[in-house]
């Protein structure tokens, strides 16, 4: 069978129409949801700020508290007073420091933080971490601290 006859026999028109319908339907639904997504996220963020304190917690306050708590208890990141020789040990010590700043970061910021925390030899160490590919470039002069977690 060929031609229109074959199409009819295979119920082709219906199938094609159904297919086009479903593709459009699902992509239109997706398109609508995606287009509202950033508004929903904005409302969500706002709602948290507007609700009375008892029902939901103010985020900035949490952060403030956290900051206060941390500034009270661990204003500096712990580290040994002598610089270990093995790069993996160094990376393990520097990891918590790197976690304190947003990812990716400028090396200058990491340096300042290291100085503030009295880490030994910050300049030399940052250079080594770079050479060892633990500090990896993330574009735009920003860097990431990429220390292989051992556990998987």
């Amino acid at each position: 069978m060929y031609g229109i006859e074959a199409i009819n026999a295979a119920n082709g028109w219906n199938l094609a129409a159904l297919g086009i319908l479903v593709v459009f339907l699902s992509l239109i639904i997706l398109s609508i949801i995606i287009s509202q997504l950033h508004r929903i996220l904005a409302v969500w963020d706002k709602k948290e700020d507007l609700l009375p304190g008892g029902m939901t917690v103010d985020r900035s306050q949490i952060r403030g508290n956290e900051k206060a708590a941390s500034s009270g208890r661990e204003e500096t990141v712990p580290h040994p007073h002598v610089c270990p020789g093995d790069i993996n040990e160094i990376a393990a010590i520097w990891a918590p420091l790197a976690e304190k700043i947003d990812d990716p970061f400028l090396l200058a910021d990491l340096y300042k933080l290291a100085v503030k925390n009295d880490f030994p030899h910050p300049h030399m160490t940052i250079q080594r971490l770079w050479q060892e590919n633990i500090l990896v470039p993330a574009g735009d002069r920003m860097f990431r601290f990429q220390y292989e977690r051992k556990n998987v």
Partner: protein
Amino acid sequence: MDKFLHFISQTGFANIELSSLVMMVIALFLLYLGIAKKYEPLLLVPISFGMLLVNFPLSPLMALPENGQPGGLLHYLYLGIELGIYPPLIFMGIGALTDFSPLISNPKTLLLGAAAQVGIFCTFLGALALGFTTMEAGSIGIIGGADGPTAIYLSSQMAPHLLGAISVAAYSYMALVPIIQPPIMRLLTTKKERVIVMEELRETSRRERILFPVIVILITGLFLPTALPLLGMLMLGNLFRECGVTERLSKASQNELNNIIVIFLGLTVGAKCSAYYFLTVETIQIIVLGLVAFAIGTATGVLMGKVLCKATGGKVNPLIGAAGVSAVPMSARVCQTVGQEDNRSNFLLMFAMGPNVGGVIGSAIAAGIFLAVL
């Protein structure tokens, strides 16, 4: 002497057939296109080399196991296609490579990705009219989706005997997009439409980009379970990319896993191009139908672009509708080029990426529909 004659009788020269020779010449020609013309070389080089290897007279590469002897190398590697394993894994890599921001910040371009799939279903009708079965017709139609892995996945599941011809047609036309699309785009648009400069896209937030793959898979997965293997892995790859805590997995999806599977996929797609299945009238029909599919998809994409242009009061340049066929990022580049013919300062590339990646989702949905109803 006996041994010697026996050996001679086992050389390829002694067993050569015309059909093998023709296939080898076709393979060498495709290899030439891949290398010299840079037609989708990452796929076309392994495909054509695979085609070459299996079409040598007495080639053992696709041999089935028998008498306790193992089968050929490509016979085993082909299992990854036959069982539907490679294409979803490739899609995971594509997901990890794809930035959906242009789509998220301009979600109406998803409609352009939908419109360009009309070519798939028209070609499905055309293939039915030429006497193909529904299964075959669906696999041929999906060429118009311009997504290699989608075409390979669908045809491996529904019409494996056509896999070779369909894949070759799909990748060849994807490489020919810069030649196929521009005339259609110019024909269907006015100069006034082509010079439209679009508004800058807004920035997307990290949370939006993380939620996007989850929402896509929730909606499409609930709608169309058969689309889950392709779309699920596409979205998983994209989630690896965007979620910010799985960079290792994102890199692995894009690189090591992807590269290995591209080699295996290419070789074994080529290995399905034996003379018996390839040197047929059907192959020629498939090649013609594939061109039709690309052309219609381009046209319906552009036409939907014109609709959106009207609906938005001229804020959408209809040219970007052509990118809805996917062939990422080739057809988006074509939009860019054609747009700049009339307005040198028009920079459509980023806007065209929206329908471009939308078209990938659209074709995977189309494949899911065929899997569900055929």
